[in-house]
């Protein structure tokens, strides 16, 4: 009896001690030289594409080293990112859903919305192309053709930025085909949705960054691209600090400033070029913002 009590206690104590050691070992030694803000914790809600493409893994350590802030990035869809901002549960947003962002600012939830970067969306599908959309110039016409052919289309269905754009295009193409057997919603992130489209030989719409990052294990080709409505615009928005005294306004400001700083923009412009042969994002800070 006593022996097994000791056994369990020993096991858990061992876990604690080891975890304590790891915790100590992982404390960054250079922190003493970095500036120490009064409220170091910044909650960033952002889209899955910035996490899944690996961009955050590059940018966040840079920001933390420069400013001493500690970012908690929560990768969700743009819809949820803004919903959390609206409740004052986030400090700063990095999102790509221009129409919803405009409403967000208008309602007074956010301030200082600034253009950061863009890439574009592409419509992809099986190489056999059952709806014969390849080479169609207009994204709206593409969706009309898919609807006419009743060809399988896999939608995010998660209220993300990509999903918002897709729904907008369907609206212009004659209505969102909700409930049609050939229109299926995954309710999940871009990566998972690509997996589903790949397995089911369906069409889908994706941001180019995620597609390039995932291309090697997909049997789906880019069929329609480079139409004006397919631009994918990312803005940084600070949550309105008047919403809640708990919002880290200074931290949000610092992060937003960091995202549009020339040095950061340089990193964004180069990101992915080495690995994929072309950059995943185009740096846009300071350019005329047509979406504002």
């Amino acid at each position, binding site marked *: 009896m006593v022996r*097994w009590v000791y056994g*369990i206690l020993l096991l858990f104590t061992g876990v604690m001690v080891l975890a304590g050691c790891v915790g100590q070992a*992982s404390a960054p030694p250079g922190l003493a030289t970095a500036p120490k803000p009064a409220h170091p914790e910044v909650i960033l809600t952002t889209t899955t594409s910035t996490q899944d493409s690996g961009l955050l893994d590059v940018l966040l350590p840079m920001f933390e080293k420069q400013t001493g802030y500690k970012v*908690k990035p929560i990768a969700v869809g743009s819809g949820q990112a803004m919903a959390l901002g609206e409740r*004052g549960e986030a400090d700063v947003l990095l999102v790509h859903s221009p129409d919803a962002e405009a409403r967000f600012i208008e309602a007074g939830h956010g301030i200082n919305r600034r253009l950061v970067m863009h890439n574009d969306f592409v419509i992809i599908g099986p190489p056999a192309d059952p709806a014969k959309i390849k080479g169609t110039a207009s994204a709206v016409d593409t969706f009309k053709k898919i609807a006419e052919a009743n060809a399988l289309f896999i939608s995010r269905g998660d209220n993300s930025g990509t999903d918002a754009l897709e729904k907008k295009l369907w609206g212009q193409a004659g209505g969102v085909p909700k409930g049609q057997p050939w229109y299926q919603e995954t309710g999940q992130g871009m990566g998972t949705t690509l997996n589903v489209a790949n397995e089911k030989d369906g069409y889908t719409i994706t941001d180019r960054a995620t597609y390039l*990052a995932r291309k090697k*294990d*997909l049997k789906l080709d880019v069929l329609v691209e480079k139409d004006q409505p397919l631009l994918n615009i990312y803005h940084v928005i600070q949550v309105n600090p008047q919403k809640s005294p*708990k919002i880290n306004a200074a931290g949000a400001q610092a992060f937003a400033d960091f995202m549009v700083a020339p040095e950061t923009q340089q990193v964004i412009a180069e990101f992915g070029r080495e690995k994929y042969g072309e950059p995943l994002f185009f740096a846009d800070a300071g350019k005329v913002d047509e979406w504002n």
Partner: protein
Amino acid sequence: MELILEGIRQALTLMFGLDPELLRVTWLSLLVSGTATLLSLFIGIPAGTFLALQQFPGRRFIISLVNTGMGLPPVVVGLFVTIILWRNGPLGALRILYTPTAMVIAQCVIAAPIVTGISLAAMQSLDPRLRLQILALGANRWQMVWLLMREARLPLLAAVMAGFGGVISEIGASLMVGGNILGQTRVLTTATVMETSKGNFALAIALSIVLLVLVYVVNLTLTNVQQRSRPL
């Protein structure tokens, strides 16, 4: 098939190369789920024992709640714990959302009913005459409870294993209350989901293998303890 082999190969490389990121994620999984299990034992074993030995009005109702709680969906726990821990929520002043502490709380909520339910069943499966005999031998109330717990120690260890197994493999709550933040709240399960969605299937398989090995080692240890002390 190639992919699975590649996954196994990556798992071995990561494990024997002592990849620092893998170590950190593995330790955090073990720390969070181990602490949550330990806390749930302090709640679950006394609660289960009490429910087993004490008769009071509403007892059946509470037992039915505990039994339902054994199947508590982790996402539901995750959602409620998140909302409660929001900085503008009821316990927002603690500022612990998106930290390992929040994950421990959520996992403890998941594990506690499992431990309670199995402890309850363990204590009830004892021969009721044993209680009378112990009392007849002059034991006081606490001595009786202690002796009964000793007698039920094998199923009680099963409660530990079930509780630990339930939380180490859980993803919904950890993802919601932890946020899968690199270097802070990323654990084996959330990392596996993320790598799958990134298309790094081999790495996802490698992480799964590490998780399985970890669960196996913990259970092997507990099983050894359990079987060594089998009553003769």
